[in-house]
């Protein structure tokens, strides 16, 4: 790539210039604040090198919120451009970059880390463990994700963003049709983050299977833990496919192979196929933990055990297997044989069966319950009708013959936003609010939270419901503008208004975080809502100490903490403390990931020497790690006593 030096930093666009200035100022402000308050060493020692699953979880969630902001701005820019026919807010090239980054960021750098953050924080607590199976790996996972995210995000100010859609379809994404570094960013940033996700998958899979506390058999695990387990299983078998596919396209773009190209008899459709072999399970990776979160919250605030627990488990296991058998529904129109389209039509529709079972089970969890409408519960309740709308349109899309009319249209856009926002995003909000006191020691303000909720949910429907009709009226996705005579003006304007409502709700949500930090009362017990059912609420203090449980709890049935409360057992009375073995913090993951970022950045611009230096550095850090026999340390009984005494005050 003969990149000129004056093309390295993107200039000439006022929007991008504004972003550059604000990033620069923001960066300076953060550095100045850290220096002024002398927090650098605290940041490095307590957070960045921490192997504590709780701190990593919070760092994941913070990154995800940042990405929700970034991806949300992208979304608002898209909606602004489409508000009226013939808008000149973004030129087509810029528009293409914006929707491409919107997709990648929302799925890979927002939804996944948000859920992984919640899983990180909550799952070890729910299974009564002191940490994950591989704490070091957990830190490395976070850093690879973070570096991938950072690499992807700098693309719009340095070199240019990917512009071939979040799917990066070839041959559009090959060198000939997407010259410039944008698509390289896509390939390398997702690759790095993907490796981190795979490590998370292995880590939590083993954690959940092997680290459960005494008495917690598989069928006594909370639903969130179950969905996390199955999610990890899907990650383990789906992400390697992405790794290979990305590597193959990287070879095409950087090293001259001809796999997906027009030259050399390449087959561009193989990319489409491989992308969705990963891509469909990916959808379930971001939806299953959401199901888990809703299950927890609905059962908590209905004060009832989850209805038909076994059926719920069977249905998620079924979904996990089926999720690998449906990927073709993303390209029914590729001219597959009628047999193939029929087969994948039916498997896709079949997924609606276990999903439907879950919906009815949630409804009947509330049947004969005592429902209280807290904010997390409201988000969970709003999920049901909205997700059903998204789900039934999914069944419509699954009918291949009809899909020829929906494919690539706003009908599809609306469908997947209905499923992903009402599923994943609602769950992220619900889960964050629900577990917020566990993470930060105080609740989020309910009143402000409800304002954010109503504005968001109404805005969401105003934004996306009209898009079904735009799709049926022939509006294809990804067009940067349209003509007045297309007749799409009114619905597009409505949709844009809805989008801005969601943006407003997000701001209120963020304000709530600040407001509650200042004014909310601090929690005194581990069971902030007073209705906790699972072990995460069984800790002595509101925020668990770094070792989680002074004495590991014993479990006899489902909803163990509810059980303990019913039976009047006081977990915290047990003071038979023993020294606790904990892992040590480590700085190699951050360094290793930084080197990965450096190597990848070099490859983006085809500066191979930077790539080689980075790769050598990565190997050196791995060797250092291999010779590191640090086994962690012991928390003494005195320290435990002291910590527990403080917590009980």
């Amino acid at each position: 790539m003969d990149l000129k030096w004056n093309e390295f930093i993107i200039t000439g666009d006022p929007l991008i210039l504004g972003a550059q200035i604000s990033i620069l100022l923001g960066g300076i402000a953060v550095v100045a604040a850290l220096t002024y308050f002398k927090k650098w060493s605290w940041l490095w020692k307590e957070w960045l090198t921490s192997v504590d699953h709780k701190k990593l979880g919070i760092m994941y969630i913070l990154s995800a919120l940042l990405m929700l902001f970034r991806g949300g701005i992208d979304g608002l820019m898209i909606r602004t451009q489409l508000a009226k026919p013939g808008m000149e807010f973004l030129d087509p090239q810029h528009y293409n970059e914006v929707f491409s980054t919107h997709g990648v960021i929302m799925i890979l750098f927002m939804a996944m880390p948000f859920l992984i953050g919640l899983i990180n924080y909550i799952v070890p607590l729910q299974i009564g463990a002191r940490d994950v199976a591989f704490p070091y790996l957990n830190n490395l996972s976070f850093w690879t994700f973070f570096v991938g995210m950072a690499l992807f995000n700098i693309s719009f100010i340095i070199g240019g963003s990917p512009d071939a859609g979040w799917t990066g379809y070839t041959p559009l994404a090959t060198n000939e049709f997407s010259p410039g570094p944008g698509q390289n960013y896509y390939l390398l940033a997702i690759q790095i983050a993907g490796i981190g996700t795979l490590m998370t998958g292995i880590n939590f899979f083993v954690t959940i299977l092997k680290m459960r506390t005494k008495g917690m058999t598989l069928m006594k695990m909370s639903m969130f833990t179950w969905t996390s387990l199955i999610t990890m299983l899907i990650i383990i078998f789906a992400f390697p496919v992405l790794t290979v596919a990305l590597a193959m396209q990287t070879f095409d773009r950087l090293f001259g192979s001809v796999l997906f190209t027009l030259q050399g008899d390449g087959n561009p459709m193989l990319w489409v196929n491989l992308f969705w072999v990963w891509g469909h399970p990916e959808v379930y990776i971001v939806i299953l933990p959401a199901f888990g979160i809703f299950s927890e919250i609905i059962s908590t605030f209905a004060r009832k055990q989850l209805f038909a627990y076994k059926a719920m488990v069977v249905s998620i296991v079924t979904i996990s297997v089926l999720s690998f058998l449906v990927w073709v529904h993303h390209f029914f129109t590729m001219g597959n044989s009628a047999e193939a389209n029929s087969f994948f039509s039916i498997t896709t529709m079949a997924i609606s069966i276990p999903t439907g079972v879950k919906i009815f089970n949630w409804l009947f969890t509330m049947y004969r319950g005592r429902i209280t409408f807290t904010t997390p519960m409201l988000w969970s309740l709003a999920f049901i009708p909205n997700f059903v709308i998204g789900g039934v349109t999914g069944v419509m899309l699954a009918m291949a013959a009809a899909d020829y009319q929906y494919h690539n249209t706003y009908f599809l856009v609306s469908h997947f936003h209905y499923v992903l926002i009402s599923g994943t995003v609602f769950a992220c909000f619900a889960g964050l609010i629900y577990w917020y006191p566990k993470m930060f020691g105080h609740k989020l303000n309910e009143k402000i939270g409800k304002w954010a909720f109503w504005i968001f949910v109404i805005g969401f429907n105003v934004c996306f419901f009209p898009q079904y009709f735009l799709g049926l009226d022939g509006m294809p996705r990804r067009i940067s503008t349209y003509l007045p005579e297309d007749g799409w003006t009114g619905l597009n304007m409505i949709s844009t208004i809805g989008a801005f409502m969601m943006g407003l709700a997000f701001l209120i949500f963020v304000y709530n975080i600040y407001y509650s930090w200042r004014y909310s009362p601090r929690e005194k017990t581990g069971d902030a809502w007073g209705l906790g059912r699972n072990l995460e609420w069984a800790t002595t203090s509101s925020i668990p100490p770094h070792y989680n449980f002074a004495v590991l709890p014993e479990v006899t049935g489902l909803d163990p903490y509810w059980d303990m409360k019913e039976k009047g057992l006081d977990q915290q009375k047990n003071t038979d403390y023993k020294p606790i073995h904990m892992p040590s913090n480590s700085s190699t993951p951050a360094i290793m990931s930084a080197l990965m970022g450096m190597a990848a950045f070099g490859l983006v611009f085809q500066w191979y020497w930077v790539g080689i230096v980075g790769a050598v550095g990565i190997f050196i850090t791995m060797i250092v790690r291999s010779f590191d026999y640090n086994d962690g340390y012991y928390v003494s009984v005195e320290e435990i006593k002291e910590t527990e005494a403080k917590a009980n005050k």
Partner: protein
Amino acid sequence: MAHDHNVNPNAPLEYQSEAGRLNITGFWTFLGAEIALFSTLFASYFALQSRVGDGPTSIEMFEAGLVMIMTMLLLTSSFTCGLAIHEMRANNVKGVIAWMIITLILGAGFIGYELYEFVHYVHEGVTLGTSAHWSMFFILLGTHGLHVSIGIGWIILLLIQLARRGLTPKTASKVFISSLYWHFLDVVWIFIFTCVYLMGMVN
């Protein structure tokens, strides 16, 4: 995280500590991911098999003798690696190191032949950019070769640690895991041998 109270002195050394057991299970899980990784490569290879463009077909390039030598080298290395673990369970450090060194030599021989094969193809004018078929051939074989090379480097590091520290639950589990990796690469090679070479030489 290690729960040291959970030590089982009757199990083989690598299974004795909680950390060792977790690592072994974790590594098996990783091998599950590797199965998905290689199956994607195989799937792509099959999909692109007939797309040779202007370039030669497999049957024009493959040489049965070379493939047989490579296969035998890797099969034998897998066997010697198994013997190393056998020695480890007999608590014989020297045996472990000796068999592992033989394994590494055989592995290095395999890599040598593979490099020879690649260089030979390039001389004949078959490169990464010749056709989709050959791109995929080099990527599939290259991925496997890279795995073997990483395995060699890794095991060398472990041998140094073994020489320094002797057999402990920690070194034992590391060595055991590296052996799993090595055997797994042999399993992958069996399929490369069958699906790429043998099937490519039929017709």
